[in-house]
């Protein structure tokens, strides 16, 4: 059995976080999402893996090269759809195979359920089906897939995980896989709908927080680096090598901290926090329920709650992220979701900045202690 992982798409609704990497490479609990997919395949003994790359492909390829598994890489030159991406892998396919999105979490048990099937898809129940392909099922077989409908007839959605025989390529007439399924159904092929055991997608930036807290359940406790004897730890805590945790810091797991960070003294890190590499948390800073990527510096006396920070943000002292919910338009839809802040790469903020339900683009600069709300475009300077 082979597997094709689709990792070419940007994941535009996750902007500004996808500036330098595609969605599949966004770190969740300090591992790119695609790693969870690869792990699930390897656990099922599927080692013949092809990854389709495209958007910011260099980042993906570099990462894949570092993995132990021998992974074949193919390039989709223009990102015009999933079927087109699959076609890019056609020359590598010799056997029945699975197709998986590289940017959704899927567990090994779900893959075990579908791996024996010839033509099948994994489906799941989702409270907001209109962001997905909604699947109409009769007698365990797929009748119809309706892409991102305004009014969804059921709560059953496609996970984007399929099992195919190599002749599927003759059905790939358009650029999207669901069209090929419709063509297969029309020609009398039976496509089984199999419920996934555990699956989760992150459509919008704030969804990463949910995915993060879910993935943090699986981290392994490990203490690398230098942790002061007065540090209080509870729950599962992972601290990378070269990281220093200063005196009187309190860490309540699940928390994962990368390599070469500098934390504290006197910081508090509450559950559901991921911190990347080379992050600096200055003294008296409090962090909870947040995903902080590499090279971020957070000044002292800050309070960071329910926030996603992109790489290389530099936030001065007394920065606050304040969770609240207001209307924000993302990807053409108006959303209302409670979160503190989503900051793109390289955001800089002056002392006493408060982010309130704010999405700040890449390289945004906030000058002077302001309260900023809502959507701020890339490169904006807030005076």
């Amino acid at each position, binding site marked *: 059995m082979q597997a094709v992982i689709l990792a070419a798409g940007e994941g535009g609704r996750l902007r500004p976080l996808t500036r330098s990497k595609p969605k599949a490479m966004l770190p969740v609990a300090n591992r790119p999402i695609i790693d969870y997919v690869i792990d699930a395949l390897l656990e099922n003994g599927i080692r013949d893996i092809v990854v389709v790359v495209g958007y*910011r492909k260099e980042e993906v*390829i570099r990462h894949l*090269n570092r993995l132990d598994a021998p992974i074949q890489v193919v390039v989709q030159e223009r990102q015009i759809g999933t079927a087109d991406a699959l076609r890019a892998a056609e020359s590598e396919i010799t056997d029945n195979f699975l197709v998986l999105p590289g940017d959704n979490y899927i567990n090994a048990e779900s893959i075990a359920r579908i791996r024996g099937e010839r033509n099948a898809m994994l489906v799941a129940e989702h409270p907001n089906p209109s962001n997905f392909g909604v699947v109409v099922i009769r007698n365990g077989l797929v009748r119809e897939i309706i892409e991102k409908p305004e009014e969804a007839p059921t709560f059953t959605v496609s996970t984007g995980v399929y099992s195919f025989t190599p002749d599927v390529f003759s059905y790939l007439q358009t650029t999207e896989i669901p069209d090929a399924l419709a063509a297969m159904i029309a020609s009398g092929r039976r496509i089984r709908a199999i419920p996934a055991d555990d699956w989760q997608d992150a459509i919008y930036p704030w969804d990463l927080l949910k995915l993060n807290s879910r993935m943090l359940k699986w981290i392994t406790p490990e203490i690398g680096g230098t942790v002061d004897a007065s540090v209080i730890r509870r729950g599962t805590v992972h601290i990378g090598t070269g990281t220093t945790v200063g005196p009187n810091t309190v860490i309540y797991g699940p928390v994962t901290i990368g390599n070469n960070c500098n934390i504290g003294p006197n910081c508090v890190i509450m559950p559901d926090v991921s911190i990347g590499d080379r992050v600096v948390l200055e003294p008296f800073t409090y962090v909870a329920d947040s995903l902080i990527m590499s090279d971020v510096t957070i000044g002292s006396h800050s309070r960071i709650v329910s926030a996603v920070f992109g790489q290389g943000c530099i936030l001065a002292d007394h920065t606050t992220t304040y969770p609240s919910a207001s209307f924000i338009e993302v990807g053409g839809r108006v959303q209302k979701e409670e979160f503190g802040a989503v900051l793109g790469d390289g955001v800089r903020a002056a002392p006493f900045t408060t982010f309130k339900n704010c999405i700040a683009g890449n390289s945004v600069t906030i000058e002077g202690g302001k309260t900023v709300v809502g959507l701020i475009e890339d490169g904006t300077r807030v005076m």
Partner: protein
Amino acid sequence: MCGIVGYIGRRDATPVLIQGLKRLEYRGYDSFGIATVGSAIEVYKKTGRISEGESGAVDLHGCTGIGHTRWATHGEPNDINAHPHTDCTGRIAVVHNGVIENYGELKRQLQGRGHTFQSETDTEVIVHLIEEHYDGDLLSAVSASLPLLKGSYAILAIAEDTQQIVAARDASPLVLGVGDAEVFAASDMTPLLEYTERVIYLEDGDVADLTHDHFAIYHGGLKVERPVELINWCVEDTRRGGFAHYMLKEIYEQPQSFYETTRASINDHVRGMVMETGEITLVACGTSYHTALIFKYLAESLCNIPVRVEMGSEFKYFTPPLHGLVIAVSQSGETADTIAALKMAKARNCPTLAITNMQGSTVTRVADETLLMRAGPEIGVAATKSYTAQLAALMQIVNLRCEGAFDDTLSHAHLAIGDVLLQDVREAVTLCSKAEHVFFVGRGAFYPVSMEGALKMKEISYVHAEGYAAGELKHGPFALLTAETPVVAICTPGPTYGVMASNIKEMKARKAPVIALGVAGDTELAEIVDIFIPIPNTHLLVQVLTASIALQLLAYHTACALQRDVDKPRNLAKSVTVE
């Protein structure tokens, strides 16, 4: 340049040797060959590249063998001049890297004694000398022949009736790899990475006797012990993965190689050397020469210390009054000219420091101290990540002299490097790939950056390119400007900005299309030039890096557009191990 590889152990030698030679391909070569000890000495050699299925096509037997990639110096590249070379009887075979300076004289003597030479190479004298001394003991035959040779060599020799390789080195690189009931020998560690992480760096004058389960090293007739060292590189680093070219892979590894190199701690001896010296002299060749020039601008302006920079190849033709620290910069650590210059500096009692990417390379043995770049193996012939790693090491020296003033700048530089890698240079590539000549101009520290940009363009895309100090352009080269010669100008905020901007206007007035590198958001500059490539607006130290990388991308994509063999540009060798 030439690469050698030897294997003795339990496996079939041919595939190991062919694979090893493929790993050494990056050193540059025009022919290759292998020899094994089967029922007799069996030799296979060929002009041209090693093809994918080569090991299947080579029908040699035996678990002992030697191989060679040749970059022609004495005699043109053809099947006869390719190594291995055999003696008159065909019982002994030798591969050799280096140059035998007295081969003419030796050849006449040997011919006088009745030896028949087949090739025009200097190497063949070695095998005939060994033949004269050979009476069934290969080790003593090789040892007896070596004192007659003048010049540089790394040699591997095999003989018909013995499962044994004799290795010797003097002034050419040779490392041994120790496996499990198998022993490897190679010019550098890249072919060994797949089989073992335990290596031994031989010293000049060493002779090693290798059998499958045993090795012994002799120096001046006495048995000596050499330490077994562990390599910290992994074989993944030498694989291209999904990248189209090694060069592209290495360009994208630069945030990491820069970061790793600036993070590496500097030992107290090096620290002392740097802090105490009143002046610094750098010797380097090629790309390393450009990094050295950049260092000159940075160190003189930021830490107020006199710096001179000399090309390794020219150093010996003047007798400079040398005082203070001498730094040799070489990626491979085997650059013959740089090493010769370093030896001169040592002879004058100057403290010497080597900056190199190759642990255990010759330059590290010659210099008093070494500052190791953490670039990892660089396979592409055009230097990219080793360039940034060299700059990282040199900027660390600047930072040291300035008492850590740039700690913060350097620790965040990898982010700006990552940023510039996202830059789309396609428009500029279209312009450059149609041009016959491209000029690169800059001022201050950006002058050597322009030279490096031009060098990259020349070496991989074969488009004629020259780097000039912008102020020098009007003293001659201006005559060459036409509407068909694009100019790449680096124009960033600082003391050079105003005068660069007016230079650009002068060029525009001569209708030359201008590609400008400026900081993001500089709309004024973007308006006067034809193509604007933004680089992050950061500290000068980082701008030097990001501008260089933008120019690497430009050269790489231009070469791709012209369908050049990016990783193996014609006539070029990765490390120039002959003077």
